[in-house]
């Protein structure tokens, strides 16, 4: 049930089933609701750890059944009967905004966050042309291959150890400590190999809290692994915006004004998803120097799964909207979409650049990125091929989509990250990082950074992460922050360590510290000019032992976020008889500043591109009118596979950022942000000559076919 009152819950039958240890409901747990963790969300909208009196989305847990063995659980759960009194269901955000049915009657409205701005009625007065469009940025599911899983164990000393599939073990630790009123050192969270997160595993979920509570209540370790079907309902979803865009300018191609109105679906219990439209607002103008930008947003609750910070988190939505707007504007004035972009991009000479919405972009060369992408894709050749196919009039038509994007990385208030670098008497090094790698390759990357400063080979450097007992603090890995915050911390700590070691080496060499250098190739300290008399790292570290060792603890403090940017070109083929769109090529320029490890950076781009393409062409979480999810497994939810994707064409571009010593921005989300609009644009472009101006995502065969039907009948009636 998507929205119902719990009239009665009968677990009696379950208690008799084999292996059942206990059945708990909200009445048994003495736990407060989970804070939303975002400013401005009222307490009345906090999510209870288990549904209490009312369920507000399909998938909200109402009871937990503990069994000795895994197989017994599903049998026993079938014997838990819940008597529901249905309440009216609200699935559509506009209906939620109208407020006929309230999810939280005490709150008096379904609005969770409100960033609305009125629109000046004269906003577009100076524009020769104004184009308006409603755009749907549809709800998608992050689908990490590993679903949520964890185990909690309480020691005799009252200490909680919890293993969690999480991107942020320290945040989980803080949440658990707070919940159980424990001192910070009474909780240990370990994130073992985590099978993907994509922003969906940032905070501990209520289920994780229930696991910890159950373990304490039972005095035995408790573990939980959800099924994929449960995960499709219980793991946060992404995106979910209804956008009304309006773009105005002159017929010569200059854009003068842009307005976006965002209605964000927050899901039933608002969390970070309710806040993302603020980022959409701030990133609204994208790469363009638009004189007047007005952005308005609010988030409403609906009887659906909560929306979270899925890869891109507010920025893909902004980019998709402005890129749609640019294409529509270009179509209206009959200009080439690449040309219109070039005409309106912020010039590279104007950085740092403060946008009309108040963000200051650090450094960018948007025209350079666009030119690179157009050249690498042979844009002129593609247009010629397209013209030829249109002239031939065959059923398989070609579309070309161009996008330019800029996005914000490391944008959280605490932009720094924690690291410890130490060298042991063995001459090997150990790095402790507060980042939380789960496939990003931080062990390799941080080893590279430390090795570069220390002159110790990478294979002699160990990187420790993901255990709050071993790493004192950390922000976790999300928001494309790890290199510019975490890597920076390792880099800086390593440099400081070299300085300290040099001081000690000078003592050992009986020399002036200013005269002592570190030979990074040999890994030895010597007086400049006298390499034969040296002290190895092992010797220096051994000497340091009685003084507490060679060890630096450090938190980086970058001055602020960075703004990676790029341009993508997508080539699709649309079978105009069936509406089926196939991606043939994806050319991507992604500038994230100085690249530390090309292989790792490319991997991040590939993964992001695939998810971006998936949103444009395939994936969508759907609910029926009663709030029942209809895409809640991997057979029904069209999670993208290898057969829908080509190999990607990555173009290198690296404009170092002045924001940090590494010159590095984040790259984790760029691929997703640039590719979605490029592919959507390409599908529209493929059938633009048939009178089509817009197709919503995903551009499924039926949707494309329907648009073609509507366009043909519209023409026919003229």
């Amino acid at each position, binding site marked *: 049930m998507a929205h119902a009152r719990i009239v009665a819950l009968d677990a009696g039958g379950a208690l008799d089933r084999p292996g059942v240890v206990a059945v708990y409901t909200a009445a048994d747990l003495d736990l407060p609701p989970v804070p939303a963790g975002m400013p401005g969300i009222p307490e009345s909208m906090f999510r209870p750890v288990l549904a209490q009196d009312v369920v507000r989305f399909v998938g909200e847990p109402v009871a937990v059944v503990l069994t000795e063995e*895994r*197989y017994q659980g599903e049998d026993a759960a079938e014997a838990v009967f819940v008597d529901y009194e249905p309440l009216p269901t609200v699935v559509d955000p506009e209906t939620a905004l109208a407020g006929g049915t309230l999810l939280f009657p005490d709150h008096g409205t379904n609005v969770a966050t409100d960033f609305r701005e009125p629109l000046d009625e004269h906003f577009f007065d100076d524009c020769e042309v104004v184009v308006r469009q409603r755009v749907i940025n549809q709800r998608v599911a*992050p*689908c*990490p*291959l*590993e*679903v949520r899983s964890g185990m909690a164990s309480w020691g005799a000393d009252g200490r909680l150890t919890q293993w969690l599939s999480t991107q942020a073990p320290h945040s989980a630790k803080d949440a658990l400590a707070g919940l159980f009123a424990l001192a910070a050192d009474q909780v240990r969270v370990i994130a073992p*190999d*985590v*099978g*993907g997160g*994509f922003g969906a595993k940032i905070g501990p979920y209520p289920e994780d809290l229930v696991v910890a509570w159950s373990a304490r209540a039972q005095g035995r370790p408790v573990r939980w692994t959800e*099924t*994929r*079907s449960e995960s499709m309902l219980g793991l946060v979803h992404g995106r979910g915006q209804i956008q009304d865009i309006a773009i105005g300018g002159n017929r010569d191609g200059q854009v003068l004004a842009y307005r976006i109105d965002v209605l964000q679906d927050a899901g039933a219990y608002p969390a970070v998803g309710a806040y993302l439209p603020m980022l959409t607002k701030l990133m609204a103008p994208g790469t363009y120097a638009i004189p007047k930008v007005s952005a308005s947003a609010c988030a409403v609750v609906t009887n659906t799964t909560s929306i979270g910070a899925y890869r891109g988190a507010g920025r893909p939505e902004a980019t998709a909207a402005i890129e749609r707007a640019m294409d529509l504007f270009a179509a209206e004035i009959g200009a080439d979409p690449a040309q219109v972009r070039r005409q309106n991009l912020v010039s590279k000479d104007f950085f740092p650049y403060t946008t009309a919405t108040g963000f200051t972009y650090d450094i960018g060369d948007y025209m350079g990125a666009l030119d690179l992408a157009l050249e690498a894709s042979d844009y002129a050749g593609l247009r010629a091929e397209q013209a030829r196919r249109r002239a031939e009039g065959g059923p398989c038509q070609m579309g070309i989509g161009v996008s330019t994007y800029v996005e914000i990385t490391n944008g959280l208030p605490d932009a720094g990250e924690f690291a410890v670098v130490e060298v042991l008497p063995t001459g090997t090094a150990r790095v402790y990082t507060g980042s939380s790698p*789960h*496939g*990003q*390759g931080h062990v390799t990357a941080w080893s590279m950074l430390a090795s570069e400063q220390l002159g110790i080979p990478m294979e002699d450097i160990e990187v420790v992460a993901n255990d709050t007992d071993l790493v004192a603090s950390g922000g976790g890995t999300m928001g494309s922050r790890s290199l510019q915050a975490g890597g920076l911390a390792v880099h800086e700590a390593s440099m400081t360590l070299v300085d300290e070691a040099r001081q000690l080496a000078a003592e050992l060499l009986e020399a002036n510290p200013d005269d002592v250098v570190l030979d990074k190739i040999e890994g030895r300290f010597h007086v400049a000019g006298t390499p034969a008399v040296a002290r190895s790292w092992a010797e220096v570290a051994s000497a340091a032992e009685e003084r507490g060792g060679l060890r630096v603890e450090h938190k980086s403090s970058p001055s602020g976020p960075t703004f990676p940017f790029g341009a993508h070109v997508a080539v699709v083929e649309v079978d105009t008889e069936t509406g089926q769109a196939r991606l043939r090529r994806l050319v991507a320029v992604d500038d994230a500043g100085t690249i530390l490890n090309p*292989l*790792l950076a*490319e*991997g991040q781009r*590939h*993964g*992001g*591109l*695939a*998810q971006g393409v998936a949103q444009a062409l395939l994936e969508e979480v759907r609910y029926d009118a009663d709030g029942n999810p209809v895409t809640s*497994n*991997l*057979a029904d939810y069209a*999670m993208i*596979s*290898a*057969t829908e*994707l080509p*190999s*990607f064409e990555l173009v290198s571009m690296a404009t170092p950022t002045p924001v940090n010593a590494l010159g590095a921005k984040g790259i984790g989300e760029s*691929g997703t942000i640039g590719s979605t609009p490029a592919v959507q644009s390409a599908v529209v472009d493929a059938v633009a000559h048939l009178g089509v101006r817009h197709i919503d995502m995903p551009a499924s065969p039926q949707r494309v076919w329907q648009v073609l039907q509507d366009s043909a009948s519209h023409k026919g009636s003229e």
Partner: protein
Amino acid sequence: MNVSMHVNGERREYDVEPRTLLVHYLRDVVGLTGTNIGCDTSSCGACTVLVGGESVKSCTMLAVQADGCQITTIEGLADGDQMHPMQEAFREHHGLQCGYCTPGMVMAAVSLLVEHPDPTETEVREGLEGNLCRCTGYHNIVKAVLAAAQTPLASAV
């Protein structure tokens, strides 16, 4: 009931419920946790193992159906410290990030090369249609499999 099979060359015999899925038998009973579970609709392929040298989704097979069979899991590919050529290709070409889909992907790829020793890119993508990955965008997985195809013994188990 009693179920026995050869897993990575070693005979294993246990008493299990008939409804025990092969993937749970391998993970929870035999104790080989390299094979992963990613879905419940036979869609993702993370659970792929070899049964008689052919790729099978071990979540869609009962342990009792595999009674008497030769099973190869990801743990059975390497020869001591020496990685199997397919594993080596995945490592070299960065064909994994979080690594969760990887055991199933590698097993499916090994089986693919048995049946298509010199595949085109399209044949690799189609051959991996039953294996989902979220991290890599498949780009480097395809590269790894194509590279492995040029390596001797890449389809040997």
